C-alpha cells in the first residue's frame, strides 16, 4: 500500500471582511436605490408628523436607527427558534420592548423631546420599515448582516425625514435647528426687508409637497418606474 498522502485541498474560505463589498451594499442600497420612503413608500405617517422642526426629527431619526438596527439583530439571533405560527407576535414583542426602552431613555434625559414626540416614538412600533425589514431580511440572514441591513434602511429613512424637516422648518418657521435664519438674513438687507414664512409648511400638507418633490427629483435622476 502506497502511503500516498492525498493532499486534501482544504479550502479555507477567506473570512468576509467586516465591511466587504456585499455588506457595504446592504447599507448603501436603501439610501437611494431601495429607499424605504421614496421607493418603497413605507413609514410615510411619521415622516409627515414629526418633520416640522429639525431637532425632534433628528431625535426621531436616531430612535428609529436604534430600533431598526437592534431589532433586526435580535430577531436574526432568534430566527431559528421562533415558532412560525407566532412569529409576527414575537417580532412585535421585541420591537415594542426596544421602543419602550427608547421612550424611557428620552423621558429620563430629554424630557422636552419626550413630551414633543410622545406618541410618535411609541408609533415606531407600527412603522412599516421595522416589520418590513424583520420579515424580509432578519428572519433569513445572519445577525451582523441583518444589523447592517437595518442600519441601512433606517439611514435611508433618516436622511429623507431630515431633508423634509430642513425645508419645512426653513420655510415654515424661518429657522434651522431653532436658529432664526430668516431674521439674520432680513437684517442683512436692512429694516424694510422682511422674509415671510409660509404657514402651509407647518401643516402636514407641506410635508406631502416636499416629499413629493424629493420623490420626483430622485426618480427623474435614477429613472425608476413603478410597475
Amino acid at each position, binding site marked *: 500500500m502506497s502511503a500516498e498522502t492525498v493532499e486534501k485541498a482544504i479550502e479555507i474560505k477567506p473570512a468576509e471582511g467586516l465591511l466587504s463589498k456585499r455588506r457595504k451594499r446592504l447599507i448603501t442600497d436603501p439610501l437611494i436605490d431601495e429607499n424605504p420612503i421614496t421607493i418603497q413608500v413605507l413609514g410615510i405617517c411619521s415622516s409627515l408628523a414629526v418633520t416640522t422642526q429639525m431637532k425632534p426629527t433628528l431625535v426621531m431619526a436616531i430612535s428609529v436607527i436604534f430600533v431598526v438596527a437592534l431589532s433586526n439583530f435580535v430577531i436574526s439571533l432568534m430566527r431559528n*427558534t*421562533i*415558532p*412560525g*405560527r*407566532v412569529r409576527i*407576535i*414575537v417580532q412585535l*414583542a*421585541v420591537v415594542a*420592548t426596544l421602543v*419602550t*426602552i427608547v421612550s*424611557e*431613555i428620552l*423621558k*429620563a*434625559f430629554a*424630557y*422636552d423631546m*419626550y*413630551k414633543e414626540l410622545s406618541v410618535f416614538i411609541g408609533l415606531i412600533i407600527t412603522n412599516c420599515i421595522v416589520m418590513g425589514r424583520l420579515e424580509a431580511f432578519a428572519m433569513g440572514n445572519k445577525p451582523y448582516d441583518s444589523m447592517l441591513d437595518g442600519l441601512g434602511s433606517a439611514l435611508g429613512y433618516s436622511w429623507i425625514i431630515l431633508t423634509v424637516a430642513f425645508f419645512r422648518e426653513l420655510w415654515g418657521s424661518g429657522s434651522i435647528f431653532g436658529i432664526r435664519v430668516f431674521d439674520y438674513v432680513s437684517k442683512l438687507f436692512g429694516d424694510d426687508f422682511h422674509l415671510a414664512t409660509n404657514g402651509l409648511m407647518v*401643516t402636514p400638507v407641506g410635508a406631502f409637497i416636499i416629499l413629493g418633490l424629493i420623490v420626483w427629483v430622485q426618480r427623474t435622476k435614477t429613472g425608476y418606474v413603478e410597475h
Partner: protein
Amino acid sequence: MQQSNTYIIVYSGVLTIILGFLLSGSAQFLGPWQAESIALDKKKQILGAVISAEEIGAMTPEQVNAFYSNNIASSVVDINGKEVTEGGVTAENVEIAKLYKKPAEERLYPVFIYHEEGNPDAVKSYIFPLYGAGLWDAIWGYVALNTDMNTIGGITLAHAGETPGLGARITEPGVQARYVGKKIFDENGELVAVAMKKGEGKDYSSKPHEVDGMSGATITANGVNNMLSSYLGHYSAYIKSKSSAQAVAGL
C-alpha cells in the same frame, strides 16, 4: 417548520418573562433621572406663568433650579385658605392630579409665590395650579395673579392628549397671552373668573372677563374655563385673605 403547541406556549412564556424583566429593569434603572426631569419640567411650567417661554428655554437645568429657589416661595393651604404644615407637605410634592379625585373640601392647595430675587417679602405675584378635563384627556396649568389679587399676570396651560392644531393650541404662547391683564372679580367683588368664548378673531380687549376663543376647539376651551373658575373658586378664601391684608396695609 411546524412546532408543537407546547413549544409555542413555552417559547411565548419565556419571551414574555425576559422582555418584561428588561422593561421593568430599564424603568427602575432610569427612574431617578426621570423623576428629576419631571420635577424640572414642573418648575418650568410654574415659572412659565410669570416669565416668557423663550427666557425659560434659554436657561440650563441648573439655572432653572437656581432661579426657582431664589424667586419662588411656596406654601400649602386648605379650602379655607388656612396654611397646612402638618405631615411635612410641601407645595412641590402635592400631586394635583391625584387630589382631583377627592372632594374639593379635602384637597390640599399649593400656592407658589413669585417674589423678587432673594426677598420673599417683595411679592410680585401668586401662582395657583389648575387641573381639569379637556376633550380627550386631562388638561392642567398654572395661573399667576398680580398682587391686587384680581388681575391675571400670566398663565401656562398644558394637556395630555388634546387634538394637535385644535385643542392642543392651549400650549401656544399666543393663546396664553390672551389672558394677561384680564380680571377675575367683577365690580361687586364676585368671582367670575375668565371665560374663553366660542369662535376666534374677535376683539375682547374691552371685556375684562372674556378672551378670544380657539376655532374648532370649543370643548377644550370649555374645559379651560371650568378649570379656571373651579380652582379660582377653591382658592377664593386664600385670595380674599391676601387682598384684604393688602387693603389693610394700604390704609
